[in-house]
Every structure is written in C-alpha cells, then in structure tokens.
C-alpha cells in the first residue's frame, strides 16, 4: 500500500540550517511537522534537546477473514442489488464486502451499503454472469497506520498520520499499535 504522506517534516539547527533528510536531530532547536492536508494540525517541537527522528509503519494481514454467506445469493448482471434467500441482516453489515464464490480476478469484491430482509445493495453494479450461487463475505478492518516520531531528551512525540493526533510518551517508549 502506498503511503499517503499527510505530513512533511523539517528541522532547524541553531545556526539556521534547515534539515529535511536524515534522522539525527542532536543539533536542532526546532522540529516541525507540516500538514499536506489543510484539515490536519501542524506540530512544532521547539527549544528542547532533540536526539533523533524516525517514522514507524504498521501493516496488517488477516487470518481466515472470509466466510461463506448462508444460502445462495442471486447476482444479476448490471444490478447493484443482490437478492438474498433469507434475512441476512444479522450476518452481513454495512461496510462488509461480498462476492460470488470463485477466483478473485473473475468476481471482485463489492462493498455492502444497505442490507434489508430480502436484498443487499452494493456500491456498484455487478458485472458478470447472472447466477444464484454461493457467495463469500469478509469484514474489512484498518490495515495500515503510520507514525511520525521525534525523540527528545526526556520524552518522545508521536503523531499519527491518519488524523494528526499527537501522543507524548517517555523517551524510551516504543509505541506499537
């Protein structure tokens, strides 16, 4: 997954030199995270002894995140509505993904928008062979996060790339999400 860089960083030495690369901040007096997205907060660390900086990425993989939907769903070419043989409102939820059973390249996932007692509305029309067939469901979950970190004498300053939230921890604290 490509990282959407929500921040750029720069550090400033006491003599005014600006750094935008590397990890050593020992001679710096200012460290700034500038949001690329205007809705995110800017962060500045100033006039504290700084040590280093790094970014931390988190990738996730799921085990066994796929199950067969009860009954046979009715998929129709050109329709975003999938008919269900029974009420699946307790099984399939908004945001889940469903698809016909078969190779992923032939029958890609559709995102569930609305579930009623007899049908499921998905995010786009189905393109393929109309069929009443077994189908799969998976529940997506956040699969990536990225932190910016500056290590200072006495504390660390972490900023989450997804929303700009900041967290201050002890200097040696390794934050794993």
């Amino acid at each position, binding site marked *: 997954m490509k990282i959407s860089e929500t921040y750029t960083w720069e550090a400033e030495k006491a003599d005014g030199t600006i750094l935008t690369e590397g990890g050593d901040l020992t001679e710096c007096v200012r460290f700034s995270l500038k949001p690329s997205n205007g809705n995110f907060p800017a962060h500045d660390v100033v006039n504290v002894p700084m040590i280093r900086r790094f970014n931390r990425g988190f990738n*996730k993989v*799921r085990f066994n995140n796929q199950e067969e939907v009860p009954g046979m769903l009715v998929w129709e070419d050109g329709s975003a509505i999938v008919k269900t043989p029974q009420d699946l409102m307790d099984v399939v939820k908004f945001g889940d993904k469903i698809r016909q059973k078969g190779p992923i390249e032939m029958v890609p996932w559709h995102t569930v928008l609305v579930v009623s007692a007899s049908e499921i509305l998905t995010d786009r029309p189905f393109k393929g062979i109309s069929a009443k067939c077994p189908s799969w469901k998976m529940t997506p979950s956040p699969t990536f996060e990225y932190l910016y970190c500056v290590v200072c004498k006495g504390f660390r300053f972490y900023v989450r790339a997804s929303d700009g939230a900041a967290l201050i921890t002890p200097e040696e604290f390794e934050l794993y999400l």
Partner: protein
Amino acid sequence: MAATIEIHEMSALATGTDKTAGTVRFKDADDATVDTNNPLVIPGSGDVYSYTKKVRAYMEDAPSTKVENLRWYPDAANGFGTGISVKAKNIGTTWGANYKTAMSGGASLWTYSSGSPLDGDGVDTSPFLPAKLDNYIGDLIELQMTVHDDAAQGALTPETLTLAYDEI
C-alpha cells in the same frame, strides 16, 4: 518519499504473494489461495495441523535512508476459540517446504504482542537501504494452525498479524 513495505505470503525464499491488507488462510493444502477448499477437519481425537505458512516483508518502494526494526505481533488474545491455536517462529532465511506435521519449536503466536513482538530481522539484519528496492527484507516467519478435537465447527473469527517497521 516514504517507503512501501508489504507483507507477502511466501512460496519460496524470495517468491511470494502480496497479502498486505489481505487474508492468509490456514488450510489443508499448500497454496496461498483464499477460498473455502481444503478446510481443516476437526479430528475425532488429538490434533490436526494446517500446512505451515510463511510470511516475509517486501520493499515495494524505497525509503529515503533506511528501513529497520522489523517486528511482528498479533492483536490481543487468541480469538479463534477453544481447541484452536497458532504457533509462530522466526526461521531466518533458510527456506523449507511447507508441511502439515506438527511444527517443532516455535511458540504460541499470542505469546507475542505489541509490547513484546517477534523479532523480524535477527538473521537478515537491518538496516535495509534503498538498494533493497523490490527485494525481500528480514526473516521468514513460519506459522501453523493446530485444531484440537474439542474445537467448534464453523468459520473462525478473523485474527490479525501486524508487521511494524521504522524508517528514516
């Protein structure tokens, strides 16, 4: 430019399938296909084992300076339920064919956590420089599911494995 590090399910030391944000399915077959074929059948007594799975980090986009400190850990506690467990171990960079007999060594995946992760670069050691672009980095992590005779029938609640890394 931030690095892009992927999680691949491996079929050889340097050949794998990108499973980042995807699914790894423990099954009674040696392939990376996510389907409902070859399920693990609850035994009348004792245990059955899935084919082992191997995952490894892959550098899809290079960092500015380096990537280091690869760590693997699951979420919270085992949510698969009674009678179902997963073992994990770091096997370095020595490839061995996947197998469905009991894994020797290793530890429960849930002995690792965000506070005590499984080291992912003890043999193929970091730092990994931009020259590693489009290459596998770090060690192979081998996993195997065990199903005991008291397990409940049915699909399992998904669990998550996280790869964390630092970059500069």
